[in-house]
């Protein structure tokens, strides 16, 4: 019985992720896309939980579903577009794109199944502490670099959007 829940959850999440992801790409309203994106993120957080990575799932909710989605919604609001036909949302090369992407996707997805280990084996719960230890002690250097990255991004974002003084 317990064995059955995991696959079921996985199936539900999978369907949600794929459907919502496809929706992001196909939706004709941008706000719809954004919301579907947030929904995808949420489902991925679920996947994380399923994989036993609750901390990551929490971050996922915070950063993606929270911050990034909001940022993007702001972006959408600041760049209003006049309504246009649905077809014009897509580029002319869509068939070409399908031609190239689909085989790659199928190939990669098939290859993915060569990993046969059980995904939930040996799952540890409550992994915030070890993760924090890793990030702040073992990965101190990349973390510092990442902080510089955020600083640089901040400066960049400001310089690009601030109004001219004169």
């Amino acid at each position, binding site marked *: 019985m317990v064995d059955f829940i995991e696959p079921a959850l996985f199936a539900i999440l999978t369907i949600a992720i794929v459907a919502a992801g496809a929706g992001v790409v196909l939706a004709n309203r941008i706000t719809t896309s954004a919301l579907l994106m947030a929904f995808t993120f949420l489902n991925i957080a679920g996947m994380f939980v399923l994989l036993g990575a609750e901390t990551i799932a929490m971050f996922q909710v915070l950063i993606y579903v929270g911050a990034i989605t909001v940022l993007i919604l702001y972006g959408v609001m600041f760049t209003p577009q006049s309504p246009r036909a649905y077809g014009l949302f897509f580029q002319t090369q869509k068939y070409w794109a399908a031609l190239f992407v689909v085989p790659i996707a199928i190939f990669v997805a098939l290859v993915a199944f060569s990993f046969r280990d059980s995904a939930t084996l040996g799952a540890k719960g409550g992994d915030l502490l070890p993760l924090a230890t890793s990030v702040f002690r073992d990965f*101190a250097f990349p973390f510092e670099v990442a902080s510089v990255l955020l*600083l*640089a991004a901040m*400066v960049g974002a400001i310089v690009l959007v601030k109004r001219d003084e004169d």
Partner: protein
Amino acid sequence: MTAFLDTLIPVLPEVLVTITACVVLVADGLLPRGQSRGVLPAMTVVGLALAFLGGPLAPPSGQYFGGFVQIDTFTTFFRAVFIVLAVFATLVAPSYLDRRGIPPGEYYATICFSTVGAMTIALSTDLITLFVGLELMTIPIYVLAGMQRRDRFANEAALKYFLLGAFSSALLVYGFAWLYGVTGSTRYIDVATELQRIGLANGPTIVALALVTVGLGFKAAVVPFHQWTPDAYDGAPTPATAFMSVGPKAAAFAAILRVLVSGLAPLQVDWSTVFAVLAAVTMTGGNIVALAQTNTKRMLAYSSIAHTGYILAAVAASAAGPSATAAVLFYVFAYGVMNLGAFACLLYFDIEGSRGATLEELNGFARRQPLGAFAFAIFLFSLTGIPPTVGFVAKFLVIQPVLDAGYAWLAVFIALNAVLAAFYYLRVVVHMYMYDPDTGAPIVASTRLLSTALGLSALATIVLGVLPNSLYAWALQAANPLLR
């Protein structure tokens, strides 16, 4: 506190560059508009110079930060390359920024941030650091490209560069994820050990290798992942173009060397042929399209793609041992000096509303600005690969491992491509020296700082061409750590 500082000693140059960026930002905020003009670049250069000098203070080689920082000759070499390029990009910029209303503090700071990112790549020991460093190097460049906010070309350049850059980053990091999945580690050494065991012949490794190839190829502007290059270079403000044509490229090759040559070394037989073909396609593609350009800036952009091809040839030849890596390093350095110089020469032709310079605008340049034209000519000859310039030595050094690795056809390709390239490089010289100036020729915008910078790099181009030994010896030394 001292202990904390002690831990920073190995990465002192990176820290200093970061501090420089912050200081410049603060100073920009504090100083009144008029004063900051001369002070900011001076501060930047001083900071970078300190970082340059700070390098030797660091303990010579070893791993720090729990094995996340690798200080060796390779690192030192690239640190020097990046700092030199940043200094140069700083020196040529001031008057242009002034004319175009680009905020100087942010410009210099962004250059510094990007430099830190590039330096991080050079000292990384695992894919995570590499990825973060790569992003730290690239994201400021997106900003740099779009910093001239009022300019539609700059907007477009930034947008395209950003979208494609983010896209390719995603490809790259997905490749890293698969690599991790295959090997269970992100450290180059462990990755290599594991790959040694399993080889290429399984699906996940293929996927990982392909994605990594594409991702890194994009950063280095390898055909067919190159198409962002001309548009981004073309639209970006010229000093930024000068920097982004060399800094990120050098960093990309640092990354390629770190990831492919050391991390993926076990698969070398597999990727090297692919890279050889990519190199041939890249140099030919870049050169042929450059041939059809009439805008010098765009032409130089395509030419930079071609040069990627030459460097990539040496990467593909890494079976030849340290000489291949040394050739990459030497070429990267040489390319940095001469290409930055060439783009910076375009600053002379800068007038409102024009991007770069059409060939016609260059007419008679030699009469109006003899030394500037002379410097430009030297860069162009060097890019062509005519002795006694550093570009020639670089080509010579590249051909050598390529032949050694058995890619004779690729060596012939390099030679023929150089001929092709000569045509469009020399056409620029033709316009500068052999046509008389048109009467509506743009105003020459020369400043002492720009001229000094150009003079120095022109001198370096020649001196390193005549006496390349110390640089090559250094490059050889720097190549050693990769090959254990």
